[in-house]
């Protein structure tokens, strides 16, 4: 058990990452960058799970496994998302999210 870094540090890091991800999601206009922001959010979650598991509940591995699954799912999600982004680029000739608003109101 690594004793050097207290659990709070991880949690703070995760929180910062989470909100950075959200901020990025809300502000970056490029769809790919937005996708990266989502990955940030998911990774923040991963850090949370891992830290909790390691520090608070070291006898079980639920958190570890959960983050593994998250990584896998995130990968597939990204695959589908990028496929659609490519289609967007074909149709709209841009990947600026603001231009993708044919439907509103």
């Amino acid at each position, binding site marked *: 058990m690594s004793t050097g870094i207290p659990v709070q540090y991880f949690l703070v890091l995760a929180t910062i990452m989470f909100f950075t991800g*959200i901020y990025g*999601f*809300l*502000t970056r206009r490029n769809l790919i960058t*937005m996708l990266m922001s989502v990955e940030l959010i998911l990774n923040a979650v991963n850090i949370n799970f891992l830290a909790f598991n390691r520090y608070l509940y070291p006898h079980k591995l639920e958190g570890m496994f959960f983050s593994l699954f998250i990584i896998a799912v995130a990968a597939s999600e990204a695959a589908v998302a990028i496929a659609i982004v490519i289609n967007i680029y074909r149709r709209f000739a841009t990947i600026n*999210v*603001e231009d*993708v*608003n*044919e*439907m*509103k*109101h």
Partner: protein
Amino acid sequence: MINFSYTIWIPLLPFFMFIFLGLAGHKYFPKLSGILGTCGLAIITVLSYITAYKYFFTTEKVDGAFQKITAFNTTWLQFTDKLHIDLGVLLDPISVMMLVVITTVSLMVHIYSLGYMKGEKGFERFFAFLSLFSFSMLGLVLATNIFQMYIFWELVGVSSFLLIGFYYQKPSAVRASKKAFIVTRFADLGFLIGILILSFNTKTFDFISLTDPSGTAITQGSGIGFLGLSIMTWSMIFVFMGGVGKSAMFPFHIWLPDAMEGPTPVSALIHAATMVVAGVYLVARMFPIYALAAPVALNIVAYVGAFSSIFAAIIACTQTDIKRVLAYSTMSQIGYMMLALGVSGYGGHEGLGYMASMFHLFTHAMFKALLFLGAGAIIHAVHSNHMTEMGGLRKYLPITHITFLIACLTIAGIPPLSGFFSKDEILAAALHHNKLLFAVEYAVAGLTAFYMFRLYFSVFWGKETAYHHTPHEAPATMTIPLIILAIGSVLTGFIPFNQLVTSDGRAFESELELMVAIPSVLIGLLGIGIAYILYKKESAIPDKLAATFKYSYKWAYNKFYMDEVYLFVTKKIIFKLISEPVAWFDRNVVDATMNAIASVTQGVSFRIRGFQSGQLQKYGFVFITGAIMLAILFIYLWK
């Protein structure tokens, strides 16, 4: 005890006649309807006479008094255990007397109409309506309870409406019928409220228990008070309001002159002899309550009667339409009857006014019907209602002339005609009660003689008028009723009413009071004299007089502008100030509120559409904000 149960057929026969003529008459026997209706009425006239004879002369009196006999009674509608409307036949002196009056006059009018209405469009309809009226009127007088009376009260109102508007294509007739109905309806509202108050306190509608002098209604009714008057007084005032309306007393009299738009026989029957006296009959019917439990209300009756009689008499002096003169005269005479009731007491000689009133009602029915039928004959001959277009008719219409003269003399109170006796009793009763009222009535007696003879002289004497085609005497169907009624007018004065129709059913002695009789005859003669001077020959004096008293004449000629007042109230107040604002309010406030709810919803829907911007990142922002807001809400604010 004599069985009177057959009397139920007296009102029912005309009812079936109405249904029969109304449904089938038009199609199958338009010509025969008159005969059928008349025959039906003849049968019930005979029945009525038999009933009167049996009632007055063969029925045993109990304790010297005529009994109220309930000949027939059936519950028609049950309200509560105690309150129920019965339909039935109540026989007592006044109802039996009214039976005679109604059937006699009605029969005369039927016969008369056979000639008068011959060839009119809607001949069968006319007789159907007459039957309806006879039914309603008979039902009214025979009512065993006040609610039955109210039912038939409404029915006579509607038959009057139908008959006034008989010439339904004539706008003035339509207006008049509408007016008559609505004005009386308004008065009936009072009647109904009176009934409700009365029944609330006494828990009964039944006349016998209501008018029993020792019954609870009278002995306990005066207790509870409201605004200083006892409840019983209030209810009687309201009930009297109905009577005021139907009997065309001031201020609900305005419908009566207009009602002359109806066919003349109708005016004779309904608006002279029978229906308009229903108010008097109503007060007479409720008389023990008025006299014993609601003296204030009785005083009101007296004053309303007195005022109406002089008011109408003054107007009558200025009118030129002969039917309108007669109409105002009717109003004036009914005022007499009301006054007589108002000054009467209950029981014995105290009840002189009551007896006089009924007496006058009886005689008035005869002579006023005669007057109207005579007027009808004149109109029939001249095709005009206006005195100005008549004159010198005595040569052309001898029978009409004679009978009309008899009627005029009767109404003027010239002995020994019937009007003299009845009017004399009234004046005597008034004299004993209230000098002021007596003075008024005394003046009215003079005025009556004056305007009647003004009418008589202008029509039968006066200037020689050129007619388009020579007037000729009416057919026998019309003259026979005139003659019969003239005989009636002469003779009925000798009926001993004080033996038969009295306030408590017991006979009392009354004799001619010379102190009253002589002056009243004198003033009658004076009136006739003045009329003779002014109208016997064509003269300029009336116009001069009219010019001298320009304003008063104008006011009287315009009926003291009562019509205008009513017009103002209906048009300006009810229509403009209530109905239209209500309609406006309904559309623009109530309805608009409902519509506003809808449009606000739609407006909000339009305003918030920017929320759905189509921008993915804004969606994300709302998502995050929403989650955080919920978290804050439930962690810090509303835990």
